[in-house]
């Protein structure tokens, strides 16, 4: 049950994510030096507006993209009733944005 707006939101978020994913993977390989721990990474990234913006955009795009993708799976594969689709899409999007937002906030502040 995907109409024009959801389709466009999903395509545009994919369009944003394509370079961000590559940047993210490259950073992971480059940045992880002494094991993958939050403090090890925050030590070097904290206070950076640039990384905050990079991951802020990433988290936004992921939240939109994954919420719409899961909506289609929930409807087509799990037969979730139509009336549950909008609540599900919003909930998934908000939860992802919140979880990702916490990490981004830790980088910036």
């Amino acid at each position: 049950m995907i109409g024009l707006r959801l389709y466009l939101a999903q395509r545009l978020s994919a369009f944003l994510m394509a370079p961000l994913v590559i940047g993210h993977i490259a950073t992971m390989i480059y940045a992880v030096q002494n094991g993958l721990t939050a403090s090890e990474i925050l030590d070097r990234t904290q206070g950076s507006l640039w990384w905050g913006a990079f991951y802020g955009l990433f988290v936004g795009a992921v939240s939109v993209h994954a919420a719409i993708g899961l909506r289609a799976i929930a409807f087509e594969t799990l037969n979730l009733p139509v009336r549950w689709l909008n609540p599900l899409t919003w909930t998934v999007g908000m939860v992802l944005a919140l979880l990702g937002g916490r990490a981004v906030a830790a980088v910036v502040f």
Partner: protein
Amino acid sequence: MREAAEALDVKVWRGNAHGGGYRSYSVPAQESQTVLDVVTWIQQHAEPTLTYRFACRVGMCGSCAMMVNGEPRWTCRTHVRRVLDGKRLEIAPLRNLPVIKDLATDMAEFFDKWTGAEGVFHPTATRKDAIAPISPADPMRQLANEAVECINCAVCYSACDTVTANPSYLGPAALNRAWTLQNDERDGAYAPRLRAVSADGGCFNCHSHQSCLTYCPNDLNPTASIAGLKRLSSTSFLRRGRTR
């Protein structure tokens, strides 16, 4: 001529909307035999009450489609030897459509979606006006050409897993037809059709996995037509704002 003594092991689904199952028949094999020939032989020699649908027998009318060894086919143009699995042939009513009886499905929903996608020509001229000259070289005419030879057989509709998963999805045939009309200069319903095909059950539900294209007996490419509709709807939305 092959010996008639050679027999095909044919299973045919028999039943109605409440259920049914396969029955086996032994049918003499013949040279250049089509699946429709086999069904007809069974009805004439073994099972007079067997119900199935056909008309033209030459791939024009689109009424004879059935599942043959699990895949949707136009039976009048499908040679047995091309689809035979050993000597086994399993024939069932088209998938994704309700059964009326035996091999005949209820096509009402298929055609309702056809009109739901505005797959209907809306004339802009009367019979008193001159016929609009459209050059065969016209780019829009060429786009329509590629998609226009549809015989409404519902093979693609039956092959589409998105139709199975999402009963409100308009499906490949209806959307393919809508695409030809969006490329018809003489048609007067461009905007309403764009709204119809971009609504909730419309073109944006297509996953582009191309089963429709794989099975269309006329080698049409509904996936490409649907991609065209996605493009038209998106650009019209981005250029002019809301389309509905």
